[in-house]
């Protein structure tokens, strides 16, 4: 049995942590190392950090900073952003990243992702799918780096799991990002029912009830939290914090 997880999803802009609303208006929220020290105290199950500018700027991951983050983490650490070669994967694992998250490359260079899951094992690679409501109301794959696909969201998620072999999916709702309005349960249910790999739901967490809801009422194995982990409350100032696991997961 593997236990359910709750985790902060931190966004990194290349120099500091930021938080977005619907993937826009990044606002400075602090320094990653300081944040990690606080998440250690809060005993978060895992930490996700996404460099949201690396692929857009065609920049490499900031390896030195990532190494410092991994060294500081008393919990497993997953990183995504700008991973462009097998060598990048190898380097990230070596400096202490448990799981490498890929998003853009699944669209632009699926062969690389396939080779990475083959070489490093599917559980070391997480496929991220960002999505938002399209013109005709259906949920569509969205890529901040501008890459496109004709696949529907469900087809794309199956492609990541079945064809590319990623061991886990990070399903991130652009429309819910930074809105504190709750997880997109219908889409999470649909995708969790369509793939066999564990799913991390992301986007919309605004309170403890939202987290309970997504873990109790859908087959998601993990819930990632953005705004709630970096702000006091909606519309209020920065406060690195995290809800207690016992309030959300009963099995303890």
């Amino acid at each position, binding site marked *: *049995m*593997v*236990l359910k*997880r709750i985790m902060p999803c931190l966004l990194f802009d290349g120099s500091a942590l930021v938080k977005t609303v619907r993937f826009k208006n990044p606002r400075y929220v602090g320094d990653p190392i300081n944040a990690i020290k606080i998440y*250690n105290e809060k*005993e978060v*199950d895992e930490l996700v950090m996404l460099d949201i500018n690396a692929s857009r700027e065609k920049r490499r991951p900031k390896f030195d900073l990532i*190494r410092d983050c*991994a*060294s*500081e*983490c*008393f*919990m*497993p650490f997953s990183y995504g952003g700008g991973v462009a070669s097998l060598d990048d994967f190898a380097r990230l*694992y*070596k*400096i*202490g990243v*448990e799981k490498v998250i890929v998003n853009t490359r699944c669209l632009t260079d699926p062969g690389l992702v396939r080779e990475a899951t083959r070489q490093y*094992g*599917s*559980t070391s690679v997480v496929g991220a799918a960002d999505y938002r409501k399209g013109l005709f109301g259906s949920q569509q794959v969205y890529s901040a780096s501008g890459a496109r696909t004709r696949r529907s969201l469900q087809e794309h998620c199956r492609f990541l799991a079945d064809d590319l072999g990623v*061991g886990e999916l990070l399903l991130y709702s652009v429309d819910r990002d930074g809105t504190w309005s709750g997880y997109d349960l219908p889409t999470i249910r649909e995708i969790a029912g369509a793939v*066999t790999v564990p799913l991390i739901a992301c986007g919309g967490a605004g309170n403890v009830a939202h987290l309970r809801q997504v873990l109790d009422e859908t087959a998601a194995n993990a819930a990632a939290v953005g705004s709630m982990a970096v702000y006091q409350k909606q519309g209020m100032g920065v406060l690195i914090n995290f809800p207690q696991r016992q309030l959300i997961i009963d099995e*303890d």
Partner: protein
Amino acid sequence: MIAIVDYDMGNVASVANMLKRVGAPESVLTRDPDVLRRADKVILPGVGAFDKGMRNLAEFGLLEALNEAVIERRVPILGICLGMHLLTKSSEEGQLDGLGWIDAQTVRFRFPENSGLKVPHIGWNYVEARRGNPLIPAGKRSRFYFVHGYYVTCNREEDTIGMASYGFDFACAVNHDNVFGVQFHPEKSHRFGMALLDGFVRL
């Protein structure tokens, strides 16, 4: 002084950070045999393939110093993850002999396709103490982070000090005399890991 063996098998800095956090006396990341000769305790962490781990220990000239510390001076040693596997006699993952300080072998998880159980076993899982031991408290549910495709089977039942369940119950913590090994990552397991490392530091 606690020597944390840094033999190019992953980033082991979080082990040092957590030792500092539990107030351990001086600990050093090292691949210097002379430092191992002076160590009061040794931690052998590591992630990666079995043969590569054994080969790196040999290439850095650490085997003799490790043997001297563990066998002659009877210094407590803690193997973590791959480090635990290296304490056994052999592994299905490789051809080379292990250090052989625990009478055990390392074997691969095998599950039927339809079991829904994936290899490697990855994630947080409960650990139950098997007998009185300084690392895992009895009667409490401790939670640890695991990532492994291979596990250890002991030939002497009394060497198992902790069990976890993944498809079946397996030994996730072992001890014989001054030699300790844990399958999970205490350095990635918050207060549960701190309690374990603290127990080791106090030996």
